[in-house]
């Protein structure tokens, strides 16, 4: 052929509104800090692509996304991001093992139909998986259920029970136990308070499970499995 094509990662990245980059959600900002420059990243449930755009712009990351909503996908593709319309339950099986350096599942696990299969897929297709989720063991959730006897509604879980997409809620302790069960290694974990600030608490301890509103876990597959 007369020419070969180059897809150099150092090439300029597509434009994403600059304002959006500065307003990156606190938990996404934390996730972004966990990702090394130039990594191959898959963001599952990438929404409007804010994290992917941030990673591409600031860290030269080669990013891909999966998003359920058509408006989200269109916004991403319209900003030059590589995103497919799909979901974590249906679209992860096709990827080969180790296809990505990092797979991100942010605030999405609780909305999947088969969370166990999804977490297994995450540590299969990514060398590392970063999972963030709302902690159902958070004291306000417990207290609300105890005192009011109603399903909790918060800024992380804003929908009433009858129309929430969050069908598989878990506590931090539940999640750690799932990781143990499927042999996923917890490389690192951060628990966050109501304002998205990190707590210095052991995620396996009862205090983290009580005080943290959300958890961010970095997992890797167990090579012996």
């Amino acid at each position, binding site marked *: 052929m*007369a020419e070969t*094509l180059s897809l150099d990662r150092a090439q300029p990245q597509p434009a994403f509104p600059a304002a959006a980059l500065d307003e990156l959600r606190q938990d996404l900002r934390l996730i972004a800090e966990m990702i090394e420059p130039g990594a191959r990243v898959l963001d599952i449930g990438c929404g409007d692509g804010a994290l992917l755009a941030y990673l591409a712009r600031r860290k030269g990351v080669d990013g891909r996304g999966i998003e359920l909503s058509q408006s989200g996908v*269109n916004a*991403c*593709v319209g900003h030059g991001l590589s*995103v*497919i319309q799909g979901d974590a339950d249906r*679209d992860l099986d096709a990827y*080969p093992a180790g296809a990505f350096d990092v797979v991100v599942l942010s605030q999405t696990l609780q909305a999947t139909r088969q969370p166990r299969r999804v977490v297994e897929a995450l540590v299969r297709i990514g060398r590392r998986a970063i999972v963030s989720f709302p902690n159902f063991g958070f004291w306000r959730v417990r207290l609300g259920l105890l005192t009011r006897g109603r399903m909790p509604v918060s800024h992380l879980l804003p929908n009433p029970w009858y129309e929430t997409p969050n069908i598989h809620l878990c506590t931090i302790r539940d999640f750690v136990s799932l990781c143990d069960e499927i042999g996923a290694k917890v490389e690192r974990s951060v628990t966050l308070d109501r304002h998205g600030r990190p707590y210095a608490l052991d995620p396996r301890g009862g205090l983290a499970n009580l005080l943290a509103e959300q958890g961010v876990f970095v997992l890797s597959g167990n090579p012996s499995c």
Partner: protein
Amino acid sequence: MREPLQLDCGVDFGPFTIAYQTYGALNAERSNAILVCHALTGDQYAADPHPITGKPGWWETLVGPGGVLDTERYFLICANVLGGCMGTTGPQDVDPATGDAWALSFPVITVRDMVRAQKRLLDHLGIGSLFCVIGGSMGGMQVLQWAASYPECVFSAVPIAAAARHSAQNIAFHEVGRQAIMADPDWCGGRYLSLGRKPARGLAVARMAAHITYLSETALHRKFGRNLQDRRAVTYGFDADFQVESYLRHQGSTFVDRFDANSYLYITRAMDYFDLAAERGGSLPAAFIGTRSRFCVISFTSDWLFPTAESRELVHALNAVAANVSFVEIATENGHDAFLLHEPELFETLRGFLAGCAEHRGLTR
């Protein structure tokens, strides 16, 4: 093209002619070329009036200065497919060996043969690498064939309302169309041109049947319902009582003015034979191993001819080789034909995808 083309059927075919149109200008780096691939009954007149019907180009909504396919930025090439009837060599042309029209002695061609012919055209134009290959339906099949056959020449690929293989249902519909043509006494075993005849009724019926598959039930209902055509009551006869019948008859009768019946046989056959996985021992991902092209796969919710499931299968195959792929299913009632119509979501998706690719390609305005 003087050098013969090696066809899938084993024939060395040539010399042959390719008719094409271009829009916009090739830049100095020769890096802004977009190949636009047309569908079954399309042609090279993507953005200028059709020489026979006088109607606007089939993608005039997309192509033009400042358009989604911006002719101030990109150099567009659209060529009539091999076997077509708008200038590229097809069964209606004269076989130099006999001095008579090829008719059914024209070799059976495939989508890969069409793409091979297009590759010759690009070599002739001195374009070694395409910024983008884009097309809908059979055009999308050509896009996929390009990405599989000449991956190093394809920076980005946009198959719209397409699939990696033609389904049994689609082959079945094509067979109905072909049988309608061949059942017309004026078809004369394909030799109608030499005999000064034209299988207009057969071709019109083929078009009518096919046209139904391009629309959704919802769109047909919205457009026509059970409305009667210029009458207040049914006539208890077989005239076109219903608007939908009148519409289909019109579609059929205008089609025969601009299309050749044998071309229709050959091109539908090429689509039927299309199966990218079959070329690679049954594995679709194998067709794309090592690809560095950027893909944007697009389907439409109401398209039952090339349903979203087939696009998703393609996306999964691309994911399996960790290709760079975007996939959008666009909500519309316009059925398969949506890729030819004014679909704002389609336009926005394409505009964004191409802008992203242009940045990665280093294409400046």
